[in-house]
């Protein structure tokens, strides 16, 4: 069953068309990769799906069969859709525990999610999200914060960007854990290693358009053939 269906989406911001035409689908239990070079419109597409302000959006976004195009962001989240932001906010004054508990009412589960991203809850729960965390730690908290919601679908926008030490292998394990816990995943990445390690299917996005769908390795190959500048861990 399709969880997320996006049809002929066009997204404009600041008078510029950033997403020219995008259609994709994520089924229940699937991990789907959205691969493309920097600047191809992947993050804009993710924010438009989530309902971020400041975009003119045309086209159709259906979640669990419901047209959510006109819903505000929090209503989309309450229906089981969430986004792990590429650049986590600093949240001055807010503690890690408070941020995590914004998305759920089960502290034990929230602490477990924190442990899953490699942070000891006893040490980090009361830490302040702004001054109290490094950039890499903040990114891990961001990853934990999506999982505390037990979402039906999580969009991971460049989850390895700014992450302090986790290798693509560890990150791939974490994404598989998300699936086992009941979340489907739309993984946005321009990391070749990550894209080849996880994913049942993949889409290729180039210059604001989704141009191919296929096996993740095949899509990575096509991306490189098209001159797509993917990042490799070894590089």
């Amino acid at each position: 069953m399709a969880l997320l269906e996006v049809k002929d989406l066009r997204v404009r911001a600041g008078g510029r068309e950033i997403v020219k035409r995008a259609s994709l689908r994520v089924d229940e239990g699937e991990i789907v990769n959205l691969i493309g070079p920097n600047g191809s419109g992947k993050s804009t597409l993710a924010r438009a799906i989530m309902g971020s302000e400041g975009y003119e959006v045309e086209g159709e976004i259906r979640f669990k069969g419901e047209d959510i195009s006109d819903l505000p962001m929090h209503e989309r989240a309450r229906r089981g859709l969430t986004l792990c932001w590429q650049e986590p906010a600093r949240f001055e004054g807010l503690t890690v525990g408070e941020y995590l508990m914004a998305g759920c009412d089960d502290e034990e589960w929230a602490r477990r999610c924190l442990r899953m991203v490699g942070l000891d809850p006893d040490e980090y729960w009361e830490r302040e999200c702004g001054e109290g965390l490094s950039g890499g730690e903040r990114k891990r908290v961001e990853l934990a914060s999506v999982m505390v919601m037990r979402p039906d679908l999580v969009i991971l926008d460049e989850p390895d960007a700014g992450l302090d030490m986790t290798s693509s292998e560890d990150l791939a394990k974490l994404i598989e854990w998300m699936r086992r816990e009941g979340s489907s995943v739309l993984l946005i990445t321009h990391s070749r290693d990550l894209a080849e390690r996880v994913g049942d299917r993949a889409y290729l996005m180039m210059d604001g358009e989704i141009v191919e769908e296929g096996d993740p390795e095949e899509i990575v190959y096509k991306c490189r053939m098209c001159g797509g500048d993917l990042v490799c861990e070894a590089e």
Partner: protein
Amino acid sequence: MRGGVSEEEVFGPAEYHADPDAPRVVILENKVVNVQDREGLELEAEELDDGVRAELVVKEGFELDEPVHFCVGIPWEEGVQRIETRVVVEPEARIRLLSHCSFPRAEDVLHEMKAEFVVKDGAELEVQDIHYHGEGGVRLRAEYDVEVGEGARLSSEFRLTKGRVGELWWVSRGVVRREGSLEGVVRIMAREDDKVDIEESVRLVGEDSRAVLDSRAAAIDGARVRFVGELSGEAPGAKGHVECSEIIRGDGRVESVPKLKVVDPDARLTHEAALGTLERREIEALMSRGLSEEEAVEMLVEAMLRG
């Protein structure tokens, strides 16, 4: 819970009320309900024709770890409360004052407070003043005169971050003598037609005296906040700092005025002011976890005011 605010926040810590011997003054509208003093303290409260006068004297050298509790308020919709307070902390004494001013059902309430704090040489006074004005708001007029003696220390914190403000007018004047220090912290969240007008001034008249005025306020959806923090450096080695950090949301307005006056060339005064709006991406990050925009804003503002 009362309107999202815990009983503890309205009436003070439960364990405090459970202790019948804890020092306290409880004033309901203009009636003195309870006065409980302690050896080393002189605590008196007297009903006047149109209000209450309360006086606390902390005897020389006396130190108390637990706070003296001032619990004042009006638990019904309408009323006028006038309180004159004088607190004297004698030399080398140390005390903490926890004041809860609670008006949980206020619709038409006036609360007037005239207070004098005298912290004598080598003494320490810590004042925590927490207000709750319900969802109706209160007209609050407060006037403080503060004197900090040689080597003495006063730190005060005023907090009104839950519920509505109403109209708040507050003037505070302080004098700090040689090697004395004063710290004044204000945290306020104002919404809709709330109005806040605060003027704090401190004269650093003694050598090596210190003062910090630190205000944080949020003006949300039409609220008006004006803060003036004034320091005057009048002695060699005097140091002071004014810090104002304000958040505006919707059509809220904030006027933040740090004023510094250096009379002695060896005094050093600084200020820092930051006015801004909440970051959209912080609001959206919380919305993507299922909080409405209003809930997200409230959470962020409360976090900002906590510091």
